[in-house]
């Protein structure tokens, strides 16, 4: 019987004696620095009024930070690809949930607004 196969080849700095890839310290520290910088960016951008772009930028920066955490801190980059697929499937279903709900919300916006105008 064959050894359990790894769909992804471990990177060259992964010692084969370990049960999983050991993430190098410099990678962890640079990801931390990037996350702090992105936090500073998102706080500073929020002080400028860019209209609808504010929310998009804030969510974009948050998604970048979350991606960094998932790839390096949660070692999705070094693990069996199935783990990343499961995570992405979860995110896909969350997106489905939000998109369909928002479609419904946007559809009924005129009704909501006319009701609010009526009771003001």
């Amino acid at each position, binding site marked *: 019987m064959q050894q359990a196969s790894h769909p992804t080849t471990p990177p060259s700095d992964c010692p084969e004696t370990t049960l999983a890839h050991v*993430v190098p310290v410099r990678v962890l520290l640079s990801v931390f620095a990037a996350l702090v910088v992105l936090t500073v960016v998102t706080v500073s951008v*929020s002080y400028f009024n860019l209209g609808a772009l504010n929310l998009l930028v804030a969510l974009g920066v*948050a998604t970048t930070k979350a991606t960094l955490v998932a790839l*390096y801190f949660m070692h999705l980059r070094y693990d069996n690809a199935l783990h990343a697929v499961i995570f992405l499937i*979860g995110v896909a279903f969350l997106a489905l949930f*939000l998109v369909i709900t928002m479609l419904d919300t946007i559809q009924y916006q005129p009704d909501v607004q006319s009701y609010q105008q009526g009771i*003001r």
Partner: protein
Amino acid sequence: MTQRDPSQRKSGEPRVESGEPPRSDLPARDSPLTTRHSPLRAADRGDDSAPLAHHFASLRQQSDAARLGMWIFLVTEILFFGGLFCVYAVYRANRPEVFVDGHHFLSTPLGAGNTVVLIASSLTMALAVRSAQLGRRAALVGLLGVTLLCGLAFLTVKAVEYKQKWDHRLVPGQARIASWFSGGAASPQGSAAARDQFRPDLQYVKEHLEPAGPGNLTEAQWARRVDNLRSFMGIYFALTALHALHVLIGLGVIGWLLVGASRGRFGPRRFTPVDLVGLYWHLVDMIWIYLFPLLYLIH
């Protein structure tokens, strides 16, 4: 590379991982001290290796499978919070003024500080997993301790923020909650409906809203804005309290890890518990990374 088929292993032979010599410190397979389905516990074996369960081909596959299971749990957590994020999205689409008014009552510096603290705790947690993989016990214990302290710092700041809201009577249902603690004695309004009314400190509310919006508003318009504030505070407390509960549970589990680590239970061949708790902690951090801009950075 050849490996013996586990199903054809004769009884009496010790279970081995391919390439390793038989363990002389373990009892023989047919000894009454061990059975096929319950190998000795780590404390009895006296080292940090994990037993290889019979349905896995190798320790690496067993470790991978553990992480796979944890990822599936994390997906359920993402969808769990997704429900509340959906509430936020629908509310913000229909009533943006609720959020524009509401965020004035949240302190951006405290929120940003909490974000950095949680990111730092994620770093120390990832370093702790690394220490466990490399068998560095002192570093593991130290890093787990720092993670615990960062988490406690986060909860402390959250408690300070919540106390601020409580002092100005901004918590929805505050009168009812207060009556639980005072044994129902302090109930000046009398009826339950009056007790459930949202009666914030109006002086405080006006101070914070006036610079942002138009000055002279009618009583009805102020009542409407106070109502908006109630909606915002409800969403704020639901989201952050659920997150804080997850942080608290995470801290409890990290404490359990800390006890195990100080007894030397984790090492290069058994770091899966540290790894899995690390994955949970990073997810809690990720959720806060999304909560922070959505609640605190609306200008």
